[in-house]
Each structure stands twice: as C-alpha cells, then as structure tokens.
C-alpha cells in the first residue's frame, strides 16, 4: 500500500525571462514502512521536492496524495498544522534550538501542539536511547558532536509520530561511515512502522541504505 503519491509535480521559480524550472512532471510513490532515497547532483531540485512534500512550497502544478487524501494547503496556518501533525523534517544543518538541551529539543514538538507531559518526556528519552544518545539527553547542542546532533534532529522529527519523514542531505556535515550508520538506524525505525521516509542526497553510498532509489537530474526523474 502506498502512503505517499507524488503525481506530475512541477515547480518553476520566478517569472518572465528569469524563470527557472526546478521540477518537471515528477511522479513517484512510496510504500508504507519504506525509505526512498532521492539521488541527484546539486541543483537537480531535491530540496524543492522536499519543500513541496513538506507543505513549505506550493507546486506550480501536480498533486501530493497522502493515504489516498490529496493535500490542499490553503493557508499558512493549515500548512503549519499539516507539518506539525503529519511531517517530520530533518534539516541538513539540523536547526536544533541552541538554548534547549537534547531532550528539550524533542519536547518542543509536543509543545507546538500544547503541553509536554511526563509521557512525552519518557518517549523523548526512549527515542534518544534508540539512537544511542540516551546519556547525552541533558546536553546542549553545542556540547554534542555533529553525528550526535544529527541523531537528536532525527529523534525530534520522529517525536510527533509523523506519517512522512523528510531528510535533507544527511551526510553533508558527516563522514560517510557515520552517515550510513545513522541512515541504517533511521531505516530500521521506519520499517517497523506506519510511516514512510524520503531522504535526499547527492551521495550514492548513502542511497544504498534506502529500499529504493529515485534519480533526479535537472528536475526530472530519470
């Protein structure tokens, strides 16, 4: 059963003579419990695609269907709720909140929807444990290594049980060995669950950790 379907999505930036086509008729789907790697060189449209699925950008044409439901984000507010409840994002440079400890960065997610409870805290500690950084829970981002920071960012994205995980360039700030290790952990987490993962990378070795690979060149699937 496919959870995420992207159909004929195109995106152009700018207008008139300055127009840039970042995506052109991109179509693919991802099964529940699997990880799809989107592989492409810099400028091929990976981040644009991720942003559209995240509800951060509107496609110029085409549609996104989750669980059979087409996504229509009419307002900023709807898009924010959609991201909060259905999407988990791992930014390339993590964007951990510098003044919050690792576990508090995770607790930010339930806080966006109201209060962080005791149960949330236990869940957060469990996720940090799962990604091997349980003993770093109370540390501030600047006290963590690059790899540890990335794992905090992944655990944070998983905190609200998203249907779709979006990971942007997971190796950009890490050496390959540590990168593949983190991707393997994430893959394991996704496989047991009712979620899909979309990972964007320009690194072939990284894509090997995914269940399927989609190649993107100049905004087209090849």
């Amino acid at each position, binding site marked *: 059963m496919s959870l995420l379907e992207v159909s004929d999505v195109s995106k152009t930036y700018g207008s008139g003579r300055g127009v840039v086509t970042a995506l052109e008729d991109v179509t693919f789907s991802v099964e529940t419990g699997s990880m799809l790697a989107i592989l492409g060189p810099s400028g091929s449209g990976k*981040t644009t695609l991720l942003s559209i699925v995240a509800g951060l950008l509107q496609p110029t044409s085409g549609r996104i269907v989750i669980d059979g439901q087409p996504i229509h984000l009419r307002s900023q507010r709807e898009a924010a709720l959609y*991201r*909060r409840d259905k999407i988990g*994002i791992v930014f390339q440079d993590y*964007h951990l909140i510098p003044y919050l400890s690792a576990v508090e960065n995770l607790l*930010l997610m339930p806080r966006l929807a109201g209060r962080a409870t005791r149960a949330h805290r236990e869940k957060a500690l469990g996720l940090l444990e799962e990604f091997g950084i349980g003993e770093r829970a109370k540390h*501030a981002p600047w006290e963590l290594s690059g790899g540890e920071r990335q794992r905090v960012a992944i655990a944070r994205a998983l905190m609200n049980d998203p249907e779709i995980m979006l990971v942007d360039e997971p190796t950009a700030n890490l050496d390959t060995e540590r990168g593949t290790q983190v991707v393997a952990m994430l893959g394991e987490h996704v496989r047991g669950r009712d979620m899909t993962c979309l990972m964007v990378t320009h690194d072939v070795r990284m894509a090997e950790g995914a269940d399927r690979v989609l190649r993107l060149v100049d905004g087209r699937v090849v």
Partner: protein
Amino acid sequence: MLALSEIVHSKLKFALIALAIGLVVALTMTLSAMSEGLVTGMTGAKGNLDADALVFQGDTYLNFERSLLTTEDVEQIRSAEGVAQAYGVGHVYISVDAPEESFDTHAFGLTDDFEQLPVVEGVGGMPQDGETIVDETVRSEGVEVGDTVTLTPIGRELTVIGFTESRRYVMAPVFYVNMNTYEDLRAASMFGVMAETSDAELPSATHVIDAVEGNVSVAAVKLDEGTTVEGLAAALEDDFDVVTPDEAALAGNGMPVMVLAVNGIQGVSFVIGALVIGVFFYITTLHKTGQIAAIKALGASNAFVYRQLLAQILLLVTAGALLGTGLALGAGASMPPAMAFDPRPDRWGVTLALVYLMAFVGSLFSLRSILKIDPATALDHAEH
C-alpha cells in the same frame, strides 16, 4: 518555557536588555518625580490645602496675592448652602534673615485646621503667637526646629516649632502662623515699623489696620456630601471665584505654561524610551530569523512564536521596571531636598503601565517580521 530557557541561556544579552529598560524606566520616573517636584514646589502650599474648594475674591484670576476676603465675605461663604466648614487662609510676603542668606518667602495664616500639616520634625497643631511651622526645605537656608528667625525689615521674630513637607509656594518654604501673628505681620508689612514708632501716623494707620482686621486672602471650604464645586459657585454668584485646590494650584504664577513644558519633557522622554524598548526587541527578533524559520518549518504557528516573544517581553520589562523603580528611588534619595523630587505612586503607576503598553506596541513590529519569515528558508539555505 522556550522564552525562559532562552533568557537563562543568554544571560548577559538579556541582562543588558533588562538594564536598558531599567534605565529608560528610571529616566522617565525621575523626570516625572522632578516635574512633580517642580509643580509641588510651585504650588504645594496651595494645592495641598485641606479643602474641597477654595473661594477667591471675584475677578482676581485665582491669585493668592491679590485676592482679599473680608470677615463678612467669609461669613457669607460659611453660611452658604452646602458648606460644611470654612476657614480663612491669609497670605503675606515676608523676608527672613536666615543664618545662610536672607530670603524672601510667604507666610500663610490659617484660622483653623493646622492638623492638615504633616509633621516631619518638631510639633504640629495650632502655633502660639510668634510661633511658626515651616516647610522642611527651609533647612537648606540653615534654619532648624527651635530656631528663632528675624523678619526684615519689619523686625518681627518667629520661633520655628515644627517642620512640615510639600508645602512650598513659588519654590519658597511657607511659614504657617496663627491669625494673630498673621495680622501682625500683615500690618507690619503694610506700614513698616512706622505704625509702632511714629505717634503722628498712628490714627490713620490704626484706622486702616482696623479696617482690614480679620481679612484673609481666600476661604478654604469643605462641602457637604452631594454638593459640588459648581454648586457652591452658583450659590455664591459672581462675587467670588470658586475652584478646587488642584485647579487653583495650576493657575497663576506662570503655572499653565510650566505645566505644558513639564508635560512636554515627560512626553518626549517617554516616546524615546518606548522606541528604544521596541527597537531592542525588534533587533533580537531580526537576529533570530533563521531559528524562527526552523521552528515554523517544524509546524509552529505564528501565534506560538509571538507568544514566546510576549512572554520574554513581559519578563524583561518586569525586571526592568523593578530595576528602574529602584534606581529612580535611589536617585531621589541622593538628591538634596531643594531639588524637588516628588515621587507619586499614581504617576509612576501610569509610567509603568505605559512602559508595558509601549513594549507591547514595540512587539507588534517584531510580530510583523515574524509573520514575514518564510519557513521554507529553513530548508534551502543549507547549500550556500
């Protein structure tokens, strides 16, 4: 909680912002207290009279120095509809030969109600003939409780039995005396020592003195429940001008112009302070654009982000307000009495309320930039 964590994390930055707010609060409060001090210095003895209304002679433009009421006038006022109580207040210029330097000031004769004068040193109540209760700022002229001062050129002596406060008139400490002493001072002022020393002038002088006996400058009136100042004015018709002590305080001696200037000073300091506070929070918001974009990309609403900012503003403005109030009180305590520092809780309350209000208005600029931050930028700046 996000708001508090950030403050704890960047203690120095937020301490400096709180300090800046504190200085702004201290500045506006100090200016407010000094302005207020200027106003009480000019008119405290007038505005603080224990009365609901002051009755002046008609067409004297609320001028203490010009108004004159006869014994019959005071009787008429006392028996007017709605008047519970009335006492006379007489004004006369005096010159005091003080240890430091001689100075010109005012003596007020009260027919009654000396209890209205707060005692800060010595004793209160009705003074005996030749005794006086004086505003405490007379200390700066070297006069102390227990001293006997000579009035020139009339050669009278007054013994200071107590000090009171906030009772200056046109910046000079008022000498309160009983009616006997007041009449003696006034007669002596009118005729100099002549009336006592020259037999030849005596008949006409005593004639005049008899004629003005019992006269006062104004009548201070306490009204019955339900009677208004306007009601009394109507009952007394056109022979008198009737106003509240506060209104009287703000009339004459150039007060209307001074009040305008003082309000202008306070207004300008306030507007600049408000802008400074607003700009501070605006800068901290601009500084965090990337972080705010990320939080919004994670699914935070604009309201969530703005709430965090408001919580921060509330905390910092409260810290700044406490600090500023402390600084202003400290500044006031270290000023000499002559510098006229008169902190009024109601004025300071208004200042504080306005500081909160302006911080809120300032936060709206930040809100505008929060609304404008595009969460999509959290993803795409990575590659540059």
